[in-house]
C-alpha cells in the first residue's frame, strides 16, 4: 500500500496509543507503513534537537512494516502488536545494527546477534524504529552521561529526561514512538517515565530475559516497557516477558496476567501501603502534593490505604552504590580492545604491550561516571574490603527484601513518589554525583529486592513539569501494580478530561524544538561573528 498521509494526519497517527494503533491495523483502517512513516517524519523533524534516538533504522522498520502489511492483506493471523512500531534502548543488542550502550567504547560495534527481547519484538512483527539514547552503560539518572550528547526533555528542552533510559522515555513522550524498551537497574525505566509524564514498568527480576542486553549490574538489571498508558505498557510487557533458557536467572513461569489487570477500575478490598520512608522530607512539596492526591484517588476507587514502614530502606542507597559498581567493574572488564570495540594505541609508545593498549583504550573509551564506578567497584571487591563493603551491602539487601516481605503481609501493593523531584536542569548535578544518585532513592529498593515497580503519571507540579507515582508489588505478582496503576490512570484521566493523558498538557514540543533551533543557530551566528 502506498497511499500517502498528510503531515497533519501523520501527526494524528503518532498520538494514538499502541492499543489503538493495533486495533486500527487489525481493522484495516491503517497500514504499518503509514505508521512507520509518520514516526520517521516526526523523528526527522524533532530528533536533531531532542537526541532521543542515537540511530534510526528507517530501512529496517519500513521493511518489517511492509511485510506485516502484506501478511495482513494476505489474511494471515498476526500477533496483536504486529505493525506497531517500537524503539529500543541502545543497551539491547540488535543484529546488524550498531549498539553502543551510550559509550564511545562501542561507538561502531555491530552485534552479530539479537538480544532475546529484540528477537521477541521481531517475532511479534513490530517494526524497530531505532536505538535510543542512554547514560553510558546505563550509569546515570539524566542521560547526560551519554557519549553522544544528552537527550532533552520534551517538556522543557533545558531539562533532563531522566536516566539512564532518557532516550526511550523522551521518544515516547514526544510521540517519536508509541512504545519503547528500557532497562532498569536502579530506576532507569521508572524515573525517566516520571519526569517525562509517561508510564514505565520494571518487571520482577527474571521476568524478562536479560540475554543480549549489555550488563550493568547483573543482579539488579531488568528489562521492561516504556509507554504512554498502562495498557500499552502491559501489551509490550506480555510480548517481551517469559522464560528464556539463555538466561539462567529467567523465571520459568508464564508472564503474569498484566494486560488483563490493566482493565481494572475498581479497587474495592485492595490494601495499599504508603511507604513512610519514601515520603516527606527530601521530596519536592508539589511532588508530595500530587502523590497525596493520587492516594486520595485510590481511596475513592475503593482501596484501603495504610502507612507501612520499611526501616532498612534508608540503607538502600549506600548498599546499591556498592553492589552496582562491584558487579559493573567486573561486567565492564571485557571492554579491553582485544576482540571488539574501540582500540587506542597509547601515544609515544612504539611497540605497545597488550596491557598498554587495554589501558589506553579504556581510558579513551569510558567516560568519567563509568570510570568512577569501575574504581569504586574494584575497591569494594578488593581483598580486605570485600566483607566490609560488598558483604555488608548484600546483608542490607537481605534486610530490604525482608522489609518488603513484611510489608506485603499487610498490604497488596506499596506506593510512593517515583522520584523526589521533577526533572532537573541539564548540568545542574554534574558536579555533585551524590545529588544525582539521590534521585533514585525511591526506585532502588525494588531492584535490590527483585520486586516489580511501575511508574504512572500523577499530574503536573508547580514548575509545569510532570510527576510520577510508583507502585510496587510482590515478586511475580506484577499484575497487582498494573491493576492499581490502571485504576489510578482512569480516575485521573476522568478528572483531567481530554484524551486523559498528562501529555495533553505538555507544551507543543514542535514549537519548543523550532524555537530552540532558532536560538541555537543565532547563538552560532554570534559565535562565528
Amino acid at each position: 500500500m502506498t497511499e500517502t498521509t498528510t503531515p497533519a494526519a501523520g501527526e494524528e497517527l503518532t498520538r494514538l496509543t499502541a492499543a489503538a494503533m493495533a486495533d486500527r491495523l487489525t481493522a484495516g483502517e491503517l497500514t504499518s507503513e503509514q505508521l512507520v512513516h509518520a514516526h520517521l517524519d516526526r523523528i526527522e523533524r524533532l530528533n536533531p534537537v531532542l537526541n532521543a534516538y542515537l540511530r534510526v533504522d528507517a530501512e529496517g522498520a519500513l521493511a518489517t512494516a511492509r511485510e506485516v502489511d502484506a501478511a495482513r492483506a494476505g489474511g494471515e493471523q498476526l500477533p496483536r502488536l504486529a505493525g506497531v512500531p517500537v524503539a529500543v534502548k541502545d543497551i539491547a543488542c540488535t543484529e546488524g545494527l550498531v549498539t553502543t550502550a551510550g559509550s564511545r567504547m562501542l561507538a561502531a560495534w555491530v552485534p552479530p546477534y539479537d538480544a532475546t527481547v529484540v528477537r521477541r519484538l521481531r517475532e511479534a512483527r513490530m517494526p524497530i524504529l531505532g536505538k535510543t539514547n542512554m547514560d553510558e552503560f546505563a550509569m546515570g539518572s539524566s542521560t547526560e552521561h551519554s557519549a553522544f550528547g544528552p537527550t532533552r526533555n520534551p517538556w522543557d528542552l533545558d531539562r533532563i529526561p531522566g536516566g539512564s533510559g532518557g532516550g526511550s522515555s523522551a521518544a515516547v513522550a514526544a510521540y517519536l514512538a508509541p512504545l519503547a524498551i528500557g532497562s532498569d537497574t536502579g530506576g532507569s525505566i521508572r524515573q525517566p517515565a516520571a519526569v517525562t509524564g509517561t508510564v514505565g514498568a520494571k518487571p520482577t527480576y527474571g521476568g524478562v530475559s536479560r540475554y543480549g542486553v549489555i550488563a550493568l549490574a547483573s543482579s539488579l538489571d531488568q528489562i521492561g516497557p516504556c509507554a504512554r498508558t498502562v495498557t500499552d505498557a502491559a501489551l509490550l510487557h506480555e510480548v517481551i516477558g517469559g522464560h528464556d533458557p539463555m538466561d539462567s536467572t529467567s523465571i520459568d513461569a508464564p508472564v503474569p496476567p498484566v494486560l488483563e489487570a490493566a482493565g481494572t477500575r475498581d479497587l474495592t478490598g485492595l490494601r495499599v501501603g504508603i511507604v513512610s520512608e519514601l515520603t516527606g522530607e527530601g521530596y519536592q512539596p508539589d511532588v508530595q502534593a500530587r502523590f497525596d492526591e493520587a492516594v486520595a484517588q485510590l481511596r475513592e476507587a475503593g482501596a484501603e490505604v495504610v502507612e507501612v514502614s520499611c526501616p532498612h530502606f534508608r540503607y538502600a542507597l549506600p548498599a546499591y552504590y556498592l553492589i552496582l559498581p562491584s558487579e559493573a567493574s567486573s561486567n565492564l572488564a571485557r571492554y579491553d580492545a582485544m576482540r571488539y570495540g574501540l582500540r587506542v594505541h597509547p601515544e609515544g609508545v612504539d611497540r605497545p604491550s597488550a596491557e598498554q593498549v587495554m589501558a589506553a583504550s579504556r581510558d579513551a573509551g569510558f567516560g568519567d561516571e563509568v570510570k568512577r564506578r569501575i574504581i569504586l567497584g574494584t575497591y569494594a571487591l578488593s581483598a580486605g574490603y570485600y566483607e566490609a563493603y560488598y558483604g555488608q551491602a548484600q546483608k542490607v539487601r537481605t534486610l530490604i527484601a525482608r522489609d518488603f516481605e513484611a510489608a506485603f503481609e499487610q498490604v497488596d501493593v506499596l506506593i510512593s513518589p517515583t522520584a523526589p523531584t521533577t526533572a532537573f536542569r541539564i548540568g545542574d548535578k554534574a558536579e555533585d554525583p551524590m545529588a544525582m544518585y539521590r534521585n533514585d532513592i525511591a526506585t532502588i529498593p525494588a531492584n535490590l529486592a527483585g520486586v516489580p515497580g511501575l511508574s504512572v503519571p500523577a499530574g503536573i507540579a508547580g514548575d509545569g513539569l510532570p510527576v510520577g507515582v510508583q507502585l510496587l508489588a510482590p515478586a511475580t505478582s506484577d499484575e497487582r501494580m498494573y491493576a492499581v496503576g490502571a485504576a489510578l490512570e482512569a480516575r485521573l484521566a476522568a478528572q483531567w478530561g481530554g484524551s486523559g493523558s498528562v501529555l495533553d498538557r505538555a507544551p507543543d514540543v514542535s514549537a519548543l524544538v523550532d524555537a530552540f533551533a532558532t536560538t541555537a543557530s543565532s547563538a552560532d551566528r554570534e559565535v562565528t561573528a
Partner: protein
Amino acid sequence: MTTTSTGTPARVVDFDDAVARFDPVMGLEVHVELSTATKMFCGCATTFGADPNTQVCPVCLGLPGALPVVNEGAVESAVRIGLALNCRIADWCRFARKNYFYPDMPKNFQTSQYDEPIAFDGYLDVEIPGAGDSGEPPEVFRVEIERAHMEEDTGKSTHVGTSGRIHGADYSLVDYNRAGIPLIEIVTKPITGAGERAPEVARAYVGALRDLLRALGVSDVRMEQGSLRCDANLSLRPRDDAAQQSVPFGTRTETKNVNSLRSVERAVRYEICRHAAVLDAGQAVVQETRHWHEDTGITTAGRPKSDADDYRYFPEPDLVPVSPSAEWVEGLRATLPEPPAQRRRRLQQDWGYSDLEMRDVVNAGAVEVIEDTVAAGATPAGARKWWTGELARRANAEGREVTDFGVTPAHVAELDGMVGEGRLNDSMARQVLEGVLAGEGTPTEVADARGLRMVRDDSALEEAVDAAIAASPDVADKVRGGKVQAAGALIGQVMKQMKGQADAARARELILERLSPPE
C-alpha cells in the same frame, strides 16, 4: 621482574643430600578438561584441533550482553569425580568470578568456584613401587584432596617472536576455541611425609588420577594435548624426625603445566634440589611460578606470586546456585567404576602376573592398554611382553606414554596371535613391531610386505638340516654320541641358511631325529 633465561640451570644440591636434610611438602593442582560435547556455559563444540576461532559464540567470546548457562553434563562429571575421590559433595554451591585481565580470557574474569566448591575433603590412595629392585609389594600412599571445583578454560595464546612469551613477542594470536571448555580443578591438601619419595608420589598421584578419570570416562586425559595439566607446588622445611609435623612449611614455588608423568617426577625432584641449594646458601626461596623445561630438565622463574594476589572473587550473579539433590548424587555414585588400586589387584590375579611383573606394568603406565589388548584377544603374557618391552623402553627414553607411538591394543593382539599360531618367531615379531612403529600398517600388512613368515614346509628345512650335518660331521658325531647340547651349533647354521625364517624348535627336532643313536 627478573627472569632466568631458558636453559641456565640454577645451583642445585644432590637429591639424596637434599632429602637427607629437608622434608619436601607438595601441593598438586590438576586441571582436567572434561570431554563433554559442549562447553561449560554455551552450546559450542569442544572438538580438539579445530581451526582457530571456529568453535565460538557470543557467550564464550564474552560479547556484550551474552550470559552463561551451566552445562548439566559438566556438573554430573564434577560430581562423579568428587565421589570417585571420596569427597563430600556440596548440596548447594555457587560459581564465582575470578577477575583479572588477560587477552585470552574473553570476559576478563574466569567463571570458577571459590569458597563453595562442588566437591571437597576427599582422598586418593596411590601406589608407589616397593623400595628396592627385588619386587617388594607396592606401598600405598594416601593423598588428601582439598577440593574439586568447576571452572571454564581460557583461550590459547600463541606469542609470535623470538621469546615465545608475551614479553618481547612481536605479536600474539589467540584461539578462543578452548575458551569455555569445562575444567575441573583438583587440589590436594599439602602432601607431607613422602620424604625422599616425594617425586615418585607426585608422579603416582597424577598417574592414579589420570587412570581414575579415564575409568570414569569424563576426560581424554591426554597430557600432551593439555586435557590434563598439572601444576606442582613445592616447599622444603628442615628435617626434624622427632617432630616433623610441627615444623612450619617453607616458601613454595609453583611449577606450571608439567605435562607428562615423567616430567611431574622430574620437576618435583629438580625443585627439591634447587630449593635446597637456595636454602643452603642462606637465601630465601622466592614465591613465584616456575616454568618447566622438558628439554633441559630444569625450571626457570616466571611471575612472582603472592598469597595476596587479588582476584576480587565474588559470587557469579549471572548463574543460579548448583544444588545437586541427594538422590541424584547417590544415583551417580552407583555409576562409579571400580577403584583403580582394587582393579589392579583383580587384574594381576586374572592375568597371573607376579608382583614384579605387575610392578613393571604399572610403572610403564600400561594397565589399561594391556586390559584392552587382552580384550582384543592377546594372551596376558604376550600383551605384557610387548607393552613393557620395546614400547616401554621407547616411552621412557622419550618421556612419552606407551600408547603414543601409533601401536594399538589391536595391533599387539594381532602380533601376539601371529606368534601363537607359529606364523612368526620372536625375532620376526620384533621386526613386525618395528614396521608397525614405522607406520607401515597392521602387523599382517607389515609381515606380508616384508616377507616375514616362518617356513612351515619341512622339505626346505630338512634340506638345510642335512646340509648343516654334512658341513659339520664332527659336531654331528658329538650329538650322535649323546651330547645333545652340541645340536645348538647345527641349529644356528640351519637358521642362518634359512635367513632366520624358520622355527628353531622344529629344526632341533629334525636334527635330533637324524642324529639319534641307532636303536
